[in-house]
């Protein structure tokens, strides 16, 4: 399993956490770690390379969605069998990857979405829960099925999903776009419970209200006008 999985981490100015994140993933035996450095102006790429990760570098900052699409295209180029998407701020526990992989096999799914709301979720800050509740509501009305966490960036894709998904949105709205895109292409989606570590750093890095509004706007724009 370990050799089949490529872990992609879109990162923008994450020099404070990227080293620890890579160390932690490697401690679980995963060797194929690829950082998509989204035009960082700090030492993110340098630290990632020094830790043994591969680095794909955007010369300009284009957003988390753009970096994820770059990861998808690279995964296609290297014929990756499984692709894991994780955040660079240390929110996601690599210990869940195996559970997600097992859930993928159990459900015969093409895309596994980590869900913070399937299990206990008392560690999620109130504001974050409120944003997610609104986001889930606005996205679920456009989906065929109901998802408990449309905004979680912790995901596992199999080869079928890697080959079929095509993301157009550059910002955080890619999380929702990926679900809609997967449904339209007939991919099977399942959720797997995950717990997320919230720190002052990760909360500061996450989407605020303004970014959330921009995200929802670009998602709906894409849905209505298709670009």
């Amino acid at each position, binding site marked *: 399993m370990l050799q089949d999985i490529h872990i992609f981490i879109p990162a923008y100015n994450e020099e404070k956490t990227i080293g620890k994140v890579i160390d932690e993933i490697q401690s679980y035996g995963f060797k194929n770690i690829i950082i998509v450095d989204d035009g960082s102006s700090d030492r993110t790429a340098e630290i990632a390379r020094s830790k043994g990760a591969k680095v794909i570098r*955007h*010369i300009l900052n284009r957003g988390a969605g753009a970096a994820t699409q770059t990861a998808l*295209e690279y995964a296609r*180029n290297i014929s990756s069998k499984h692709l894991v998407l994780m955040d660079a701020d240390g929110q996601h526990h690599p210990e869940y990857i195996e559970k997600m992989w097992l859930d993928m096999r159990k459900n015969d799914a093409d895309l596994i979405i980590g869900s913070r709301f399937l299990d206990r979720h008392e560690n999620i800050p109130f504001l974050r829960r409120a944003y997610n509740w609104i986001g889930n509501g606005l996205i679920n009305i456009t989906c065929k099925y109901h998802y408990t966490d449309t905004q979680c960036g912790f995901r596992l894709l199999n080869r079928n999903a890697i080959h079929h998904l095509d993301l157009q949105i*550059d910002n955080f709205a890619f999380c929702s776009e990926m679900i809609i895109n997967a449904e339209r292409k007939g991919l099977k989606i399942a959720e797997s419970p995950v717990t997320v570590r919230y720190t002052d750093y990760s909360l500061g890095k996450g989407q605020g209200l303004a970014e959330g509004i921009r995200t929802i706007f670009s998602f709906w724009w894409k849905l209505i006008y298709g670009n």
Partner: protein
Amino acid sequence: MEIRIFQVVVPVLTLGFIINLILKYRKNNATAYELGLGILFWVCLTLFAIFPDFISRRIARLFGIKSNINAILFFCIGILFFFQFKLFSIIKKQQKEITFLTRKIALKEKEEE
């Protein structure tokens, strides 16, 4: 008919802008679409400057608005929204192209490593 100052100034300005647009087009700095749209805009503005009362009354009647001033305001807001939308679409398209290029460069560099 009493001639007001803007009824002279606007047509003169229009003539200048249209000549400028034609020169740009001849130097390949503007497309035929931009030239046509520009000429249409300036001609409409000139007609409106020459016959302000007549045109505003016609617009008011066309949209069923009682006051011709309100009709002009609604009409202008509509035009502004249209151009805002056009501008936003152009920006989105250019952003998409920048992302596409950024990605191609990143993947090419990785391939060459």
